[in-house]
């Protein structure tokens, strides 16, 4: 079943247009990785889905309903949660409060404080600390846990690995299957192609605001992915990024 159906999506900031006629489908239960170079429009795409950036043209059907005009705070109740780039935890709140506030507009579901802590046990001893004293990896775990607290049907992960040590990234990515098992469909944006291909059931590559490639990781040649990533002629990308 298609959970998210994006058609002809245009979006941008002021005079700058970041996305041009994006068509993307996401099926319920799958993990879709969106890859692309810096400035390709990946983060903008997630921000449009979360309601932080307005749609200029096109439609966003979520479970059959066009949500293009729905405000960001109402999309959470529909089942869309964004883990923003840079984590964006609330600095004046403790870790516990950051997690609890994630449930402000929660849908019914399996995720609660206990189940989130089961997936991210490293948070457990940190619950009463201010969030701004946490390490980057700890903050990212809290940010993902905070999004899970709303019991999302679609969780949008923006650059989970950004600025984190490889060992921390590895542990965070090991937790991703638990998100799908918990009933969430995952759409992750990642510059690290290796990480993305390892966990995704499908990949979409963006290049300068347009979809340049789409397919299943096992069916795509590495050279094609690299070519789509950098905008090279098909088959020209023998060395890949990430």
């Amino acid at each position, binding site marked *: 079943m298609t959970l998210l159906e994006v058609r002809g999506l245009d979006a941008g900031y002021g005079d700058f247009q970041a996305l041009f006629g994006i068509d993307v489908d996401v099926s319920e239960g799958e993990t879709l990785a969106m890859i692309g170079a810096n400035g390709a429009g990946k983060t903008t795409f997630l921000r449009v889905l979360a*309601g932080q950036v307005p749609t200029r043209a096109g439609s966003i059907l979520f479970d059959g309903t066009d949500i293009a005009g729905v405000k960001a*705070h109402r999309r*959470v109740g529909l089942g869309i*949660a964004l883990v923003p780039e840079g984590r964006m935890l609330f*600095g*004046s709140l403790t870790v516990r409060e950051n997690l609890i*506030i994630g449930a402000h507009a*929660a849908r019914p579901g399996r995720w609660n404080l206990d189940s989130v802590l089961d997936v991210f046990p490293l948070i457990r001893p940190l619950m009463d600390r201010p969030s701004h004293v946490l390490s980057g990896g700890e903050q990212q775990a809290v940010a993902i846990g905070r999004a899970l607290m*709303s019991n999302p049907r679609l969780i949008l992960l923006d650059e989970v690995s950004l600025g984190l040590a490889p060992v921390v990234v590895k542990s965070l990515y090991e937790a991703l299957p638990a998100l799908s098992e918990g009933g969430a469909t995952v759409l992750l944006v990642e510059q690290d192609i290796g990480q993305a291909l390892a966990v995704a059931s499908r990949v979409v590559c963006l290049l300068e605001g347009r979809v340049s490639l789409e397919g299943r990781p096992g069916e795509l040649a590495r050279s094609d992915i690299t070519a789509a990533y950098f905008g090279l002629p098909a088959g020209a990308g023998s060395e890949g990024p990430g």
Partner: protein
Amino acid sequence: MEWLNAVVQGIMLGGLFALFATGLSLAFGVMRFVNLAHGDLAILGAFVAVSVTSALGLNPFVSLVVVVPVMLAAGYALQLGAFNFTISADPLPSILVTFGLGVVIQNVLLETYSADSRGLDVGSIEIESIRINDAIAVGWIPLITLVVAVAVLGTLQLILSRTALGRAFRAVSDDPATARLMGINDRNLYAVAMGIAFATVAIAGVFLGIRQSFGPLDGPAQLLYAFEAVVIGGLGSVWGTLVGGLLLGVAHTVGGQFEVAYGLGSGPLVGHLMFLVVLATKPTGLLGRRAE
């Protein structure tokens, strides 16, 4: 002993300053909103109490049961219908709009109540006091004002630190865009905060009206004291607001005593100087949050 008495009376006066400053501090803390009509709203609250007491024959203290909900609803509606459209990274629109609102309130009050000074009569308690010793007596009204100020600020602190509403206030204050990703309707939350700010400034206005006479044009002076208390204590800090109010009150009365003893300066002047010193040396206030 006169100096000790001045300090005691200053603490009592500081309760009123802290009450004035509470709403200003909350509005700034939650939404970085500077309300230049704050003093006029206090006077408006006092005049609403005049109407309520004369129409219903209520004691001014009891009139708060009517005045506070009316002002709370007005604050909520005004934020939703007007102030929300001025909130942006640029503080100028909100400053201009609230400046205009202050002028409108003053003129509406002049048209409705005339320029005559008014007062709120609570009976003999106005002049009754608790005598500590030969030199120090604490008036019941100033004492009640201080107790109410501590109760209001304490309740606000409890709301902010222990309730879902307070968590949402703090989250929106930190980062409204990310708060929306939690399902928080920041615009509605701003209206709730402004409703609470109006309610607290109405309480301050009623206590001002009980303590002294007031007129339609007295708002800007009250705004100045509220600003000074908030800046001294720390913008957005609940307990800082109380500390700022008390210090400002003590500065006023000790300055007044200085004038009596040596014929120099005046109470308000010492308060203003304290405000300037804090602003120059610690712009975030004594208990204010570090600037981001």
